[in-house]
């Protein structure tokens, strides 16, 4: 609990719709969803396919690789948990499986970040309950 008290950034609210996805992240597995009826891929996870409203879903394990679609180096954020760690890189990563997800680029200098840079997932266990999928330049 001491660890959670120190972690000031917003944490996701888990519910019965999203819990399997977050529990998989805690096991260091990043999943996408695919509609069993119309094959549409989707990120973030949700109970029904937005294209056809089917409740039948396959969970697709991502290989955790992709490239940077776009990014910004954030120099100003007044919110607690972020203002202490400026600058940081906010980015959309396009996964090999096709979905674009908002994330942070870590483990590299902000000036090394470019669009198109190949990246690989880093599982950041930010609390004992929550793991976030961040990315770093692929080896």
């Amino acid at each position, binding site marked *: 609990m001491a660890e959670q008290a120190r972690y000031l950034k*917003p944490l996701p609210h888990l519910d019965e719709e999203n819990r399997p996805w977050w529990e998989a992240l805690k096991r260091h597995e990043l999943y996408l969803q695919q509609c069993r009826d119309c094959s549409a891929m989707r*990120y973030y996870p949700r109970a029904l396919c937005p294209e056809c409203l089917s409740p039948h879903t396959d969970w697709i394990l991502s290989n955790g690789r992709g490239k940077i679609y776009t990014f910004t180096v954030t120099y100003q954020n007044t919110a607690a948990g972020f203002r202490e760690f400026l600058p940081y890189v906010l980015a959309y990563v396009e996964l090999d499986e096709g979905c674009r997800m908002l994330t*942070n680029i870590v483990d590299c200098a902000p000036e090394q970040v470019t669009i198109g840079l190949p990246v690989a997932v880093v599982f950041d266990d930010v609390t004992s309950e929550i793991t976030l999928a961040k990315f770093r330049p692929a080896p």
Partner: protein
Amino acid sequence: MSLAGKVAIAGAYEHPTRFAPNKTMFQLMAESARGALDDAGLTINDVDGLCTTGVGMGWMGILGFCDYLNLTPNYVDSTAIGGSSFVAHTAHAAAAIAAGLCETVLIVYGSTAASQRFAIGTGGVAGGGEPCDQYELPFGPTTVGSYAMIAQRHMYDYGTTPEQLAEVAVVARQHAAMNPAAKYREPITVGDVLASRMVSSPLHLLDCCMISDGGGAVVVTSAERARDLKKKPVYLLGAGEAVRHTARGMRDFLDIAAAQSGRLAFERAGVSHSDIDLAMVYDSFTITVIVTLENLGFCQRGEGGAFIGGGRIRYDGGLPLNTDGGGLSSNHPGMRGMFLLIEAARQLRGEAGQRQVRECEVALVHGTGGNLGTRHSGATLILSNQAG
């Protein structure tokens, strides 16, 4: 049923304040309402419809404002889709008037964002309860960061330069110099913009709109009634609205809501791009103007950076834009759609003084609400001093 020419803006008023620490939000709204009704030659007793929303207002704030002004309208709309809301309200009010639900609608906004020190662009993004928030807020998105990611991708795909972005801010300041009410009126150069501190790359401080206090209101009524009032009617010719979001992870982020809302507004108005004498386009950030003009179809995608150069968007250029100085230099009390409407009305009536656009007959107003890099709305209106 077409709305073209059936409804008009009969009154418009921009509150002169840019910093009002001794006034409340509702007071600024009431003062703005009085100004717009005076402008139209109407009284509060003529109002039978009300539209409002706000950054400082609660979920049911429209009820609180009805209480404050002792209003009992026949039509209310507090559509809340960000800074574009008042542009959308105008279309909704027009539809309601044309359908006979009400006759005279007050659309009003006020905010003390500056005196209450709201960090609108660079604080944590509000909300947190919706499914999408769970996958975004942990990573620290800000409003400026969301737009900055659009700018970064635009530069990567099309070679748009920081100098081209800066030009939007430079022209806004030139216009503000001709607007006595504008907050920032000292000239700036492209070099000044590039030398200002980086807030969220590639956007510098002077690529970002300000945060001010302020208020404004417009009164919308039937064209028939507007013709008997004090001021020259500003007719609504066409309207459109749209939203864009993360699209289950498949979003093309340079396709923005303006593409859809703009197409609808042009089709419904029956006018073409060459008919537009003035564009009032939400300038939350310099990049917003460039991608909005592209998506509205004034130029091809990727050409926006070059398009805004060479004086084209100056008040005396080929496509005068944001002649009041915009959110970059005149005012930005959290949501700016209201002031797009007011400046368009001033220009179409020939009341814009030194910055008056010559022979200004048709204006396009486009509001963007929310965050281009996650979820946003777009609302477009085409207005004219001719009924069509």
